[in-house]
Each structure stands twice: as C-alpha cells, then as structure tokens.
C-alpha cells in the first residue's frame, strides 16, 4: 500500500534569481551565494534579518559550509541545511524548506545553489568526487562524468535503438530556448541539427553538444508561507506534489532508469493531474539521455520510448508541444556546479510568476521539475521531482483550479 505524503498546502515559492554565469571567476563560492541572497532580498524589498532559514548547495564552498556562511552574511537563522545532492539539490532543498515552513521552524528560507569555477578546478573536483570515484572510476581514462555517461548513453542506444538525432532534438531545441534567454552563456550562438551531428566525439557516443560547459554562477529562490507572499504582494508558485528516491534499481548493470517511477504515481495523485496536464517540463540535462530517462520515469512516455517521444514532441518554449528546459537548460545556459540543480526549478518559478525572459511560455499554469544527481561510481544516485503551479490569489493551494488543459489524466499511470 502506498503511503501518501502530506500536502504542501500553505507553502509559497517566490523570488527566483540567477547570478549571471561566467566561464571562470576570480571570486569564491560565497560571492555567488551571497549575491543570490542579495538579489532575493532586494527583489522582495525585505531586510536580510527577515531571512531566518538558509539552504545551500555548493561543490566549491569547502572548507566553508552553510554555518560559516551565516557569519559571512551576518544572518541569524533558526533553520539551516546543506544539500550536497548535485542535480537533485534544488528540488530537495525546496522539499526540506517547505516542511520547515509548514512546521513553523522558519518563516523565510533562502535556497541557493552556487559555485565558482577556476582554471583546473573542474579536474580537481572530479578526481576527488568520492571514494568510489577515486578507486574505481577516475583511474580508467580520467574523463570525469563524460566516461560514465558515455556508457549510459551507449547502453541506451543499444537497448532502445535511440539515435544521435534523438539526442540532437533535445540539444537543438534547448539552444533555441537559450537564444531567447539573455542569462544563457550560449544566448548568442545558434545551433542546428547539422552542427550537432558534425560535432566531434568527446567520449564514445557523447559528442560536444551533449556536454555542458562547467562555469561559475548561482541560482536561488525563497520559500515562505502563502500568507507571507500575499503580505509582500509578490507573485508566487505552489507545490502540488513532490517526491524523491535515491539509489534505485541498483541491480541494473547499466543505468537506464532512475527513482522517478517509484513516486511519480503518488505525485500525480496528490496534484490530481497527469503528465498531459503539464504546461512545461524542466529536466536535469547534464546529458540529453538523462532528460530522456526523466521523460520516461515521470510518465511522459513509456520506458524505452523516449526516442519516439522526442521525435513527436516540439520542445521549444513557443511551440505546440511540451516546452522543455525553457531556459536552455544546462546544455545551453551552462553548468554552474550546484546551481545546475536549481536551474530548472528557478526557471519554473519564473515561468509561473510572470518574470520569465523573452522565453516566456504562453499562459503557464502548472509544470513538472525534475532533478537527478551524484555519480558516485557509474550512475546518478539521486532523483527528485515536483509539480509546481501558479499561485492563486484566492486560497493557499487553489492553483489546481487554474488548470484547465486536459485535466485529470493521472489515472493513466
């Protein structure tokens, strides 16, 4: 019997911010995290002393941590959390913060993923990522995540007859979206399918435009109560359902699925919605094949059928299909370390609160955000997802009432 998680009633997501990305930076991680906090406080017109909760995710913050940042930023929080979950960090930070708001442990929680990048810092991070990595992955060619994901990609292609063009559809569409997002590192650069297919191999089937560009930057959002958001008179988003599961299907010899399928039914039940109701999908796109695993795991198509799905679906923000990674995603915005795990959620909140860039989706009411992260050895361990919706001025969790398109397809799961 499935245990139903309690609702996220009364919780509001506000103040989505991005600290512009840079390929390298002389600044430390606190510069990016603190800048994100500064932008949020300014956006909301509040005093920083009103921020009584802080959740951070960063690969380059050590030896500092969330507690040392409280002194750095001179905050006095009643609740702090550090979420070291890579690409699942944003959704997980939101989940933890939402429960703290409901429990009354804090009133205004800043959730921020931020990292710096210097010449050579990526190699250092990769080689020392974990004990399993050091002993059993890095010595085999020292290619970093490209090696593990090239094996995952090859296996997926062999097993499900996926082609490079399928991955290319995701990359090309995201570049189109990035061309309409001035925050994207590749805002000015166009990419077509021929460019994608002509790119050199980096690791087996993984070619240049399947890879993200490591960079510096930060993304963040604030979690508070609906009541507080209304008092501040700011637009907000709400959480209709959410889940996380880690180290799923550990017996699969190569990863071709993640934990999403373990909870997506419950998540759709909570929301009273199904995949067809989503106005957008934001996946964690460290490589296109991983976005396809999320499309399958979250019920947008059946297991092994993502190739067909991407061939049939328009992913552009202004298309007629399912707008996907509307910011351009990490593939075209850049991967600012842990900020990559916040990018999709921050973009979703932007779309739902009417502050998206030129890439705004027409009438976005509700969408799916998904996270994936932490390759300890040969696969990503974390999965997390959430259905988020535009806040309704009438009631705390009345956003469901806004959804009109193809409602209640959740039973199909």
């Amino acid at each position: 019997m499935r245990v139903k998680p309690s609702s996220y009633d009364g919780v509001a997501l506000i103040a989505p911010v991005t600290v512009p990305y840079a390929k390298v930076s002389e600044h430390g991680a606190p510069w990016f995290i603190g800048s994100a906090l500064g932008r949020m406080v300014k956006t909301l017109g509040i005093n920083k002393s009103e921020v009584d909760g802080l959740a951070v995710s960063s690969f380059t913050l050590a030896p500092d941590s969330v507690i040392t940042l409280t002194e750095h930023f001179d905050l006095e929080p009643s609740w702090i959390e550090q979420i070291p979950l890579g690409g699942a960090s944003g959704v997980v930070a939101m989940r933890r913060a939402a429960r703290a708001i409901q429990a009354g442990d804090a009133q205004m929680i800043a959730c921020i993923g931020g990292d710096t990048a210097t010449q050579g810092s990526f190699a250092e991070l990769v080689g020392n990522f974990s004990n399993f990595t050091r002993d059993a992955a890095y010595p085999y060619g020292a290619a970093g995540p490209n090696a593990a994901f090239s094996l995952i990609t090859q296996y997926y292609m062999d097993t499900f007859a996926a082609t490079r063009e399928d991955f290319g559809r995701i990359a090309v569409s995201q570049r189109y979206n990035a061309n309409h997002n001035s925050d994207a590192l590749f805002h000015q650069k166009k990419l077509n399918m021929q460019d994608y297919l002509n790119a050199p191999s980096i690791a087996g089937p993984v070619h240049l435009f399947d890879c993200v560009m490591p960079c510096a930057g930060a993304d963040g959002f604030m979690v508070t109560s609906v009541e507080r958001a209304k008092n501040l008179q700011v637009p907000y988003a709400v959480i209709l359902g959410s889940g996380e599961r880690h180290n799923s299907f550990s017996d699969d010899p190569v990863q071709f699925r993640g934990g999403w399928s373990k909870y997506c039914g419950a998540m759709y039940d909570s929301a009273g919605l199904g995949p067809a109701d989503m106005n957008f999908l934001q996946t964690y796109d460290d490589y296109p094949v991983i976005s396809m695993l999320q499309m399958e795991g979250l019920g947008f198509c059946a297991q092994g059928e993502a190739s067909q799905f991407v061939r049939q679906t328009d992913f552009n923000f202004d298309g007629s299909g399912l707008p996907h990674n509307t910011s351009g995603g990490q593939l075209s915005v850049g991967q600012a370390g842990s900020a990559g795990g916040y990018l999709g959620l921050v973009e979703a909140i932007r779309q739902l609160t009417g502050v998206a860039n030129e890439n705004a989706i027409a009438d976005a009411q509700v969408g799916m955000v998904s996270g994936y992260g932490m390759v300890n050895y040969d696969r990503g361990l974390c999965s997390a997802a959430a259905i988020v919706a535009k806040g309704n001025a009438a009631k705390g969790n009345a956003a469901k009432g806004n959804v009109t398109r193809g409602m209640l397809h959740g039973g199909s799961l």
Partner: protein
Amino acid sequence: MTVSKPLTPPGARTALGTAHTKASCGGELVLQCCGQCAQVQYPHREVCKHCLSTELDWQVVSTGGAVCASSLLQHSLEPFFKEQGAWLMGSIKLDCGPVVLAHLLNECQQLNECKQANTRVKVINLLDASQQSVLLALPENASADQTTTLQDRLTNELTRG
C-alpha cells in the same frame, strides 16, 4: 632547463584502494568478499552492501564477465591519458556479481561495435605505472601477445614528447 616528470596514470587511492593493490598480487583477480554472506563487493568498501557485515576480506574471485557497454574516450583530464590519445574503457558485469569499470583491449571494442553487448571477457588485476592496481578486460581467449600492447601502455611511464 626544467626536467619534466614522467607521466603516470592517476595514482591517488583511498586506504582501501591501496590495500587492494597490496592484495592483488595474490591472484589474477582479487576483490573483497564478505565473511558473513560471501557476496563479492566492488567498488572497495568498508561494509558489506548486502548484509552490512564489516568482515570483508580480499579473496581470489572468478575472472569471467560480459561487456555491458564500452566507450572510446577522446578527452581526459589527466596528462597521462591525454598523451595516449583515444582510450578504450568499459563496464563489465562479472559472473561473480559486481559491475566493474575496466581498461579494455581494442579487440573487445571491435566485438562490442558488432552490438555484442554481452561479449565474454576475462578481467584481471594489473599494476600500472603509478604502482596501483587497475582492472583490465581481455577477450576471453586472448593470447599473451594480444595483451602486451595495452599492458605496455599502462605499465610504462610516459615522457612528454
């Protein structure tokens, strides 16, 4: 004029990785086995993944396995592999249980490219030029001559051209 250091594969290991190097001279393939439930473990760990026993010992295990996926790496973060050029590695499901990442012989790549994802291989320990034990996958029927090229590439230090 500065004399550049010879290049070696990445040699940083945890204490368990170093222990594996010491233990691996005891047989063709030596991995941790649980003293309680006998399950073979990989990557090296402190606690049995099955029964959580801490009684893990290095033991000789069966070398047989099958290729899951392979990849020809074109870029590396380490100078040793950068100098070597394209490098073939892959994941192997061992008959004794775990999935291991291993250096692959080129002959295995050709088989894998024929969509033989289940190509049979033999996985052995090898002391590489950093003096650490690594895993090498060979065709099951590989001759001694066939293994020499890759072994040489892994066991010889490189000098920058």
